[in-house]
């Protein structure tokens, strides 16, 4: 099984642990469209910048025995966490839910006090961010199903965003988490709009990559909802009307409810302040869109994150799945508050290794995962928000252009 481990560098990969068998790098061959000034090496950077396309394979990184041993270690980490789930995890998520409801109610109420408008927007924005990320995304992964609380059950939970839970769970929990970063199968690589990987064939509309990325960011909740229609699969005939109809019906119903609440009822309840409340709700949704887009794009698109082909992932073992999740994800460093507001998706690696353990445990297991990666010589992609975002934006720009000949 081979994987395309690194891409022509448009910037040094984020800080990684040393790869045991680094491939020969030929920086001179770099044909990045980025300006050279971004090409400094961070101090903590421990791997030689890999600047030319090459393929490596998991078998180059790990012997079959090491691979199985690594998989067993990951299983052991998971089991350890699951065995220790209890009061602290329950108290944590209930506390976050209380904070979210508090911010929500406060935000809605503060719209009655026009001078407090910025505060109302901030409060509602935080409410939506907590609802979508630390609560919604994680609850719908089944991370709290063991609590038996219908309010925190993956089967019942619905979130404060356009995408209906049922559609999203299929596209995300199943398609994205099972086929992570497999080009042609993981529909989250560029969301069917953007070119985010060299292996995606360039087409003229990709010239608009940066514009489309910006639009996707601004209208992220709408994009996420429509993503589950799988328009490209309808066009190709893979998906028929019968399958699409219930998906579309759920989208319409959910969008109707969200629009009614944020753009009709709550503004109307503030009477003459209707336009202010309307605008405030729109800004809160926008803030959440921008935040979620940026955190999520740092999860799989920074330089150094691997993508895979369908052929090489056939008949994959559980251990190989673990390694693919590791190589296909990237973390963001930050404060505890930052991790909460990102729904702990700043620990995308741990989230992809263990999608169903409570997200508050990711920072706890990250040290173990990283230590194991170091021992096995596996890369562990992490960096600051600024660093990872820079890397993502450069990729969006670079892949807007057709590949140069000779690659």
């Amino acid at each position, binding site marked *: 099984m081979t994987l395309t481990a690194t891409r022509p560098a448009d910037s040094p990969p984020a800080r990684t642990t040393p790869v045991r068998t680094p491939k020969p790098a030929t920086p001179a061959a770099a044909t990045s469209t980025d300006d050279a000034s971004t090409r400094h090496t961070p101090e903590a950077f421990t791997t030689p910048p890999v600047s030319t396309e090459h393929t490596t394979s998991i078998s180059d990184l790990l012997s079959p025995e090491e691979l199985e041993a690594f998989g067993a270690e990951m*299983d052991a980490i998971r*089991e350890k966490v*699951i065995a220790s*789930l*209890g*009061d602290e*995890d*329950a*108290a944590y998520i209930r506390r976050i*839910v*209380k904070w979210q*409801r508090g911010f929500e*109610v406060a935000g809605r109420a503060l719209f009655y006090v026009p001078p407090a408008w910025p505060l109302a927007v901030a409060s509602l924005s935080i409410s939506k961010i907590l609802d979508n990320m630390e609560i919604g995304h994680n609850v719908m*992964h*089944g991370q709290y*199903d*063991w*609590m*038996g*609380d219908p*309010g925190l059950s*993956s*089967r019942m939970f*619905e*979130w*404060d965003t356009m995408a209906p839970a049922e559609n999203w*769970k*299929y596209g995300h*929990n*199943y398609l994205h*988490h*099972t086929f992570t970063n497999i080009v042609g199968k993981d529909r989250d690589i560029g969301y069917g709009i953007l070119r985010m990987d060299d292996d995606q064939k360039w087409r003229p509309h990709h010239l608009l990559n940066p514009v489309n990325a910006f639009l996707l960011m601004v209208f992220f909740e709408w994009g996420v909802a429509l993503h589950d229609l799988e328009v490209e699969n309808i066009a190709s005939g893979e998906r028929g009307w019968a399958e699409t109809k219930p998906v579309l019906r759920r989208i319409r119903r*959910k969008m109707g*409810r*969200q629009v*009614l*609440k944020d753009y009709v*009822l*709550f503004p109307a*309840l503030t009477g003459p302040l209707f336009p202010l409340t309307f605008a405030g709700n729109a800004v809160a949704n926008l803030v959440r869109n921008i935040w979620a887009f940026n955190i999520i794009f740092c999860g799989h698109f920074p330089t150094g994150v691997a993508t895979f082909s369908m052929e090489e992932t056939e008949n994959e073992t*559980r251990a190989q*799945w673990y390694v693919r999740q590791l190589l296909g994800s990237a973390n963001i460093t930050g404060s505890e508050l930052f991790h909460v507001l990102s729904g702990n998706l700043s620990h995308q690696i741990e989230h992809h290794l263990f*999608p*169903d353990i409570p997200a508050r445990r990711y920072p706890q297991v990250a040290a173990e995962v990283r230590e194991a990666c170091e021992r096995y010589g596996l890369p562990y992609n992490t960096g600051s928000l600024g660093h990872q975002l820079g890397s993502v934006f450069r990729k969006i720009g670079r892949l807007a252009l057709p590949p140069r000949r000779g690659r």
Partner: protein
Amino acid sequence: MPVCGSSRMDLTCQETTHVFIMSVNSYSLNPKEVTMSVVQSLLRSPVVTALASPHGIDRYLEIVNPLWAAHEVRARVVDVTRETRAGAPVTTLRLRPSNTWRGHRAGQHVQLGIELGTARRLTRAFSISSPESGPGDDITITVRAREEGAVSAHLAELARPGALVHLGQAEGEFTLPEPLPSRLILISAGSGITPVMSMVRTLMRRGYGGTITFLHYARSAQHQIFADEIATLPPNVHVHLVHTRAGGERFTRDALARLVPDFADVDTFACGPAGLIETVQEAYAGSDRLRVEYFRVPSAASGDAEGTITFSRSGTRVANSGATILEQAEAAGLTPEFGCRMGICFTCTARKPEGAVRNVVNGEENAMPDDDIRICVNAPVGDCTVDL
């Protein structure tokens, strides 16, 4: 979302006329209650529902007060009574539900959830032992502590007045026919007496004048639940208490025929362990007069690929091959929903009413009835029923 069920009596749509927070069962409304009733109607209105979307108003109310609800039912334990002097403790808990409780018909059961510690809510079905109730009325459940049942043991031994429990609405079709027939046979064993007792109490409260043959099996007089109340039942209730440890004969067709020669033509309600129910069903030979309810008990895991899997929704039964339930369902021609097939995406989660399964990833066994399991990573060990 509020649903006025069409089948569950007329009670369902009266809810909006009742007071906001339970605790008052009086029939005349004082001004405070009227206010509460208005508040309650408001909380259930389409506008509030739209405003509280997508979480629902209860998710906000519960943060202020766990008993405040516009749709869900919660209750406080208000009284705890020990029923027996021998064997595993049997306890009657009087529950005061939020006025979202729509009432119940005699013989129905209710899903009751408690939190063990603060983290895990365990939900199990319990028959209601009190007579039929209206919206917001108190109800009682009578619970025997079973060694293997964490919920029943907790309720029977540790529950104290003031404890909060989560309830569903009453459910089940093990209920008296309307209008009432002139004769009835009630057969129960052990704690299977609870729904039957709800029927007896209901019939007595309604002044039922027909003939009731009430046949109950207990281990001994000390194990007998509701003994004092049964002793005071009027003469039209022909009570036959059989204490098996004192030499009493277990249920047989002949024994019943001696009491009621034409029993198969009489409306009969039987509740007890599966063994008793099977014998009763044999005796009635398919008569539609018989209605039964039996307890599900946690199964003993055999550790081997044996037994039968029953896919209850499709009515398919296959011999257990030891493969995962998803694989065996597909082999049997079913098409259950699935996703990752490796236990991470929860798409395939299905209810397992009974039977033991083993998680093929971590080897953990689970024999709890009515548990939700991921069928892609669970294989049956012994007999097992899955809602597919």
